[in-house]
């Protein structure tokens, strides 16, 4: 994977797509990728926020096709590897085929934490093409360590080179991370990775906890640009890991410059993830981080507090990909509210 102690994967151009409603242009992606390559980043991940094939009404159409993004980024990369994401059920093997043809070095295949068995064909395909395959178990706060291990073992059996614990809702506490990662590290023969969201303010802390338990590959984004309140802020992570004595490849100043000089000028104020009340509620209620901006839009349409919608979604145990249920929940909540108001008005008469 890498000679360093830890491999860093920058997902500004993938998880960060959620923050900009998937509207990065290929030119912007090329610029960010060039800065990350210059900073010696190990891996950059590129695609729609919901993976290849995610461009849709439900998740938002991207500003360009995956092909155009990959073609823009590939020429900018020298030593930095290129990763793409796929969620079976949203994208298919056809997208993997296209990405490998265009130069992807790593395919990351993500499923809900209890549903790894939908990914067998996709791993088989990637391994047949002779490139690295990583398995991502999403919303990992929704299953206990033993169940997660079972699912991770399936991915290992299908051919995964690494399995990631994805804290997609930013809902795990450091103790939760430790018990899950340590079990995976003990029981799997492949590498273990971690992916944080900062909804409870634990993005960097949880990442450190995962690395201390033996994770060797981990995700982050410039300025934390990602879904919800964002991911582990990668320039911070680089600084922290250096201070903690880890041997890593990325150059601290280079990554800081990529964040401040290259990314920040591209991002509007309202797009830059913040740990505000709505994103805090994602972590608290355990809701997939990319629901945030969709929930705000729907909340506005139905005149509802986004937090109220998120709490309800958390109770329903919605999973990644079910963004349409935001409208379902909001329309029902609005109906209840209106019926309640009407009843009150009637009883006042």
């Amino acid at each position: 994977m890498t000679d360093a102690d830890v491999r860093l994967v920058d997902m500004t151009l993938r998880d960060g797509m959620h923050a900009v409603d998937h509207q990065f242009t290929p030119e912007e992606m090329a610029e960010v990728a060039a800065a990350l390559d210059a900073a010696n980043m190990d891996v950059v991940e590129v695609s729609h926020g919901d993976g290849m094939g995610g461009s849709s009404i439900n998740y938002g159409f991207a500003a360009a096709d995956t092909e155009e993004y990959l073609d823009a980024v590939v020429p900018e990369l020298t030593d930095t590897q290129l990763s793409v994401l796929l969620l079976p059920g949203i994208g298919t093997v056809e997208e993997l085929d296209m990405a490998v043809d265009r130069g992807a070095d790593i395919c990351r295949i993500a499923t809900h934490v209890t549903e790894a068995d939908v990914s067998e064909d996709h791993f088989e395909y990637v391994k047949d093409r002779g490139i690295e395959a990583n398995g991502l178990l999403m919303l990992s706060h929704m299953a206990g360590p033993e169940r997660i291990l079972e699912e991770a073992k399936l991915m290992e059996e299908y051919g995964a080179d690494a399995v990631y614990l994805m804290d997609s809702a930013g809902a795990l506490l450091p103790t939760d991370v430790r018990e899950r990662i340590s079990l995976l590290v003990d029981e799997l023969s492949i590498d273990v990775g971690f992916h944080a969201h900062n909804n409870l303010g634990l993005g960097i802390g949880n990442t450190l906890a995962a690395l201390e338990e033996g994770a060797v590959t981990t995700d982050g984004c410039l300025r934390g640009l990602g879904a919800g309140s964002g991911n582990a802020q990668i320039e911070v992570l680089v600084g922290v890991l250096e201070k903690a004595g880890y041997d890593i490849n990325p150059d601290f100043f280079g990554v800081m410059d990529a964040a401040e000089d290259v990314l920040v000028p591209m991002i509007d104020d309202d797009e830059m993830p913040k740990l505000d009340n709505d994103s805090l509620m994602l972590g608290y209620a355990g809701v997939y981080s990319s629901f945030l901006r969709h929930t705000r839009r729907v909340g506005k349409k139905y005149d509802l507090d986004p937090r109220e919608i998120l709490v309800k979604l958390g109770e329903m145990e919605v999973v990644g990909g079910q963004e349409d249920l935001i409208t379902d929940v909001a329309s029902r909540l609005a109906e209840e509210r209106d019926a309640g108001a009407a009843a009150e008005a009637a009883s006042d008469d």
Partner: protein
Amino acid sequence: MSLDAAIVGPGNIGTDLMYKILDRGEEIDLQRMIGIFPVEESEGLQAAVDEGVDVGTDGIDSVKEYADEFDLVFEATSAGIHEQHAPVYEELGLFAVDLTPAAIGPYTVPVVNADEVVASGHENINMVTCGGQATIPLVHAVDRVADVEYAEMLSHIASKSAGPGTRKNIDKFTQTTAAGLEKVGGADRGKAIITLNPAEPPIMMRNTVYTMVHEDTDVDEVRDSVSRIESEVQGYVPGYDVTLEPTVKDQADVAFDLGDSIILTTMLEVEGEGQYLPPYAGNLDIMTSAALGAAERVAQQSVDADAIGGVSDD
């Protein structure tokens, strides 16, 4: 006149279908349930015996042996098996209703195109996917009053109701359903997405249909069309329920450029009848209901069609 039928594949789908035919088959008489294991090793065949339905335990050999008893077979095995069986059915002159993703014959959705497919002489028809049966009627309902430039469907099904076949071939589900949205639903372009949700108690099968249409579309007319097709589908899928009538999203509601189009969002749930499978498994229920619905149409049309196997031999 009624048609004699056999079910090949006594798994969850085949068994549920058996109960539906016994419960409310009008022109379909179930003659035999055929599997590949001895009765004592097959829950489905045992259920058939309990219901007084004759069984066969030698797969396609049983079909050959008893072929003169029936005119129509429901294929409830798998895509690979149906590919092997289809030429045999054709040779024996048996009409095949294919519930697998093999799709050797044309995609068929009872309220949309079943009469047309059967009238055009096809003797092997395919039931698309569960998500396709749930959402294609709605896309068609929109398309018949406003041209659908793009249709997108999502199916959310309970993890417990997704069998190993669906899980192993999830791409087949999205690809087949997307093709069905176009070929049968009438959308210029289609996209399908499926999620499996492990929540307990299991979730009811939920679907969302987005259709992109011109901004001048008369939305009331679309709602009326959707409401009419909902009633028609309920004729063979009693638990079919539109939970959100077509609701407009315009440029203010989305982050991407809509041009001169608007998006209509429609949602529906399918509650199973619970004969054999639990009510949340509406995804399986709608397949068996649609297959029976399609077969009933075949029976109605066979009154004056000599093409149906067995009839011409008499």
